[in-house]
């Protein structure tokens, strides 16, 4: 219990620092802008040089706007009135009609809250189970020699990307098996299934990351008198944070986004967000209520975006595939 509180406190602490860092940017930007202006005024920086920077930045923003068009489109759709994403009145709905009804509907009238709970259960199982097997696995593969090590690594690499299509391919087989074992319509089992699928890729990913942690830290700890577990807890885990963050993001996505298997295995009372979202898209045999669908989808994507946003620096350094350059 205390450990949980401690972890929570830690997480909150880290989050607030991050948030602070992320939020402090307007002030920093303002200061930089002021100093830049000062430099240009005093001739320490040429206007031409500044213009090049401005042009590159504007160019990058333009590319971004183009790329993000679909996002903007659905965002506009989620605010608009009526049921269609498609409209003969123009690509974007009339901004004067924008409202938050769809969000209100999603949050208070739809199955969103209960599905959210289901999703969280699944994701919790997926993340905690895969973390608890991926981290030790990656550590062992990175640092210990044992029989079959290379075979396991090889197998893992081969299976890194088979998961997605495999679940469609083996859907029926899976379903039959699950039903026969009485495991269908069970959120915990579903979470476990996702965790299983996430193991090869994430173990391998984390292993490559751990390969780059100098072994001398561990040696230092051993000489300091730390036991095997103490070395792992006090040295390896903290040092693997970026790698673990990446794995966390990927396993979270694995549990959060998947819907084909979920839909087959679950019944409505256990529907997760992704299934509920799909159900919304196909509710009735013909029509899609686009406003609500868009609002639902945006809320669905929010946690992922937030997690990534806060873990960005970790993810970017955790994905560096050390040992792969050259």
């Amino acid at each position, binding site marked *: 219990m205390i450990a949980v509180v401690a972890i929570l406190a830690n997480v909150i602490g880290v989050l607030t620092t991050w948030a602070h860092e992320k939020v402090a940017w307007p002030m920093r930007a303002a200061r930089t802008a002021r100093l830049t202006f000062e430099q240009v005024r005093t001739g320490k920086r040429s206007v031409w040089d500044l213009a090049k920077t401005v042009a590159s930045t504007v160019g990058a923003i333009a590319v971004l706007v183009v790329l993000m068009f679909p996002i903007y489109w659905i965002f506009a759709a989620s605010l608009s009135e009526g049921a269609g994403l498609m409209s003969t009145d123009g690509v974007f709905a009339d901004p004067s009609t924008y409202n938050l009804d769809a969000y209100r509907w999603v949050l208070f009238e739809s199955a969103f809250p209960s599905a959210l709970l289901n999703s969280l259960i699944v994701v919790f199982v997926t993340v905690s189970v895969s973390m608890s097997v991926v981290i030790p696995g990656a550590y062992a593969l990175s640092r210990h020699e044992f029989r079959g090590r290379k075979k396991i690594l090889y197998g893992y690499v081969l299976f890194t990307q088979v998961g997605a299509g495999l679940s469609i391919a083996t859907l029926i087989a899976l379903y039959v098996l699950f039903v026969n074992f009485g495991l269908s319509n069970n959120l915990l089992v579903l979470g476990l299934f996702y965790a299983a699928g996430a193991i090869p890729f994430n173990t391998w990913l984390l292993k490559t990351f751990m390969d780059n942690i*100098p072994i*001398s*830290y561990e*040696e*230092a*700890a*051993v*000489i*300091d*008198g*730390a*036991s095997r577990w*103490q070395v792992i807890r*006090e*040295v390896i885990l*903290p*040092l693997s*944070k970026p790698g673990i963050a990446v794995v966390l993001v990927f396993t979270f996505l694995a549990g959060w986004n998947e819907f084909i298997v979920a839909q087959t295995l679950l019944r409505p009372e256990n529907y997760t967000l992704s299934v509920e979202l799909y159900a919304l898209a196909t509710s009735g045999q013909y029509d899609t209520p686009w406003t609500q669908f868009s609002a639902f989808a945006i809320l669905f994507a929010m946690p992922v975006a937030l997690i990534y946003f806060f873990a960005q620096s970790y993810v970017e350094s955790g994905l560096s595939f050390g040992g792969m350059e050259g």
Partner: protein
Amino acid sequence: MARVRVESLRKEYDVGTVVAVDDLNLEIEDGEFVTVVGPSGCGKTTTLRMLAGLEEPTSGRIEIGDEDVTDVHAKNRDVAMVFQNYALYPHKTVFENMEFGLRMSTDLDASERERRVVETAEMMDISELLEDKPDELSGGQKQRVALGRAIVREPDLFLFDEPLSNLDAKLRTTMRAEIQRLQDELGITAVYVTHDQHEAMTMGDRIVILNDGELQQQGAPTEVYENPTNRFVGGFIGSPSMNFIDVTVDQVSDGLRLRDTDGDFSFTLSAAYATANDAALGMDRYTLGIRPENVSLADGQPQNAITAGVDVVEPVGSDNFLHLDVGPEFIARVPSDVDIESGDHISITFDESDIHLFDMDSGAEILGHDQESQPATAP
């Protein structure tokens, strides 16, 4: 605080194809500061790691404080090690870095641990850094923390693996003095690995020279400097390096004449000298070694004067190094106020008592003279 005994220690890698350390015997007294020096790949680190318990010896015995620790796991040996790249835990503050060892290897309570860390930090002059993370520190500060981390544990044995090689020259000098002062104060036995012979000489009570995994010589620094037991040691210790010339021996009227192949070089040993070393001087070809600082200008004196062209004059402030064309890389050290320029021709000489003669094949020193102090031990 402990004696250390190493007996016929051997370490092979890659199923025996690489012999990193070969039949090493060492005895280190309680409180002694031993430096281990040798070229890259000679097995220094391997030796140290075996002492620490990070590497299992292929054969041989290690005793620390009269206890056989050959099969004791690293975490149960009471040694502290300072790594070349410091290996400070990057995620822990300086305080936590220093406290970690205490927490793991002692059962002191938190306040006691804190007291010891704070005390050590004061001693190391890093008190203000206790809350910082390693990457906020400069190289010198990291080095201090790494030392502090080792010291705070008050171990039986200190091991240092080239701890200063990442620092710049000035900082290195300062840290060198600091380590010596500390070891002196604490009196803990220490083994200090370096590839810098200057460092090894200035720091060690005793210096151990390895090459190719084998012990070459051990002894007090001046001892080793003055009486290298073989050509390797002679060349390795001292900067600039000892000058070597291959010579043949002729019996002449007033003693023995040493000459190099093309005859530029000729030096006659006095009869008295020849007689004194008669037993040793049995062959007709040797490598003669003479240190740059023992080469002096032959001011008009014709006896044993060698004429040499000056290729380069290297001023190092206090002295000038003259690169002479007597042999490949033949250097003479002269005071900086001697006015010689490159291109000049000068006449040099040296005292016969300063020369070393090495067996051309085995490299072994054959004279072994002027050994007034304790004899240097060959392996």
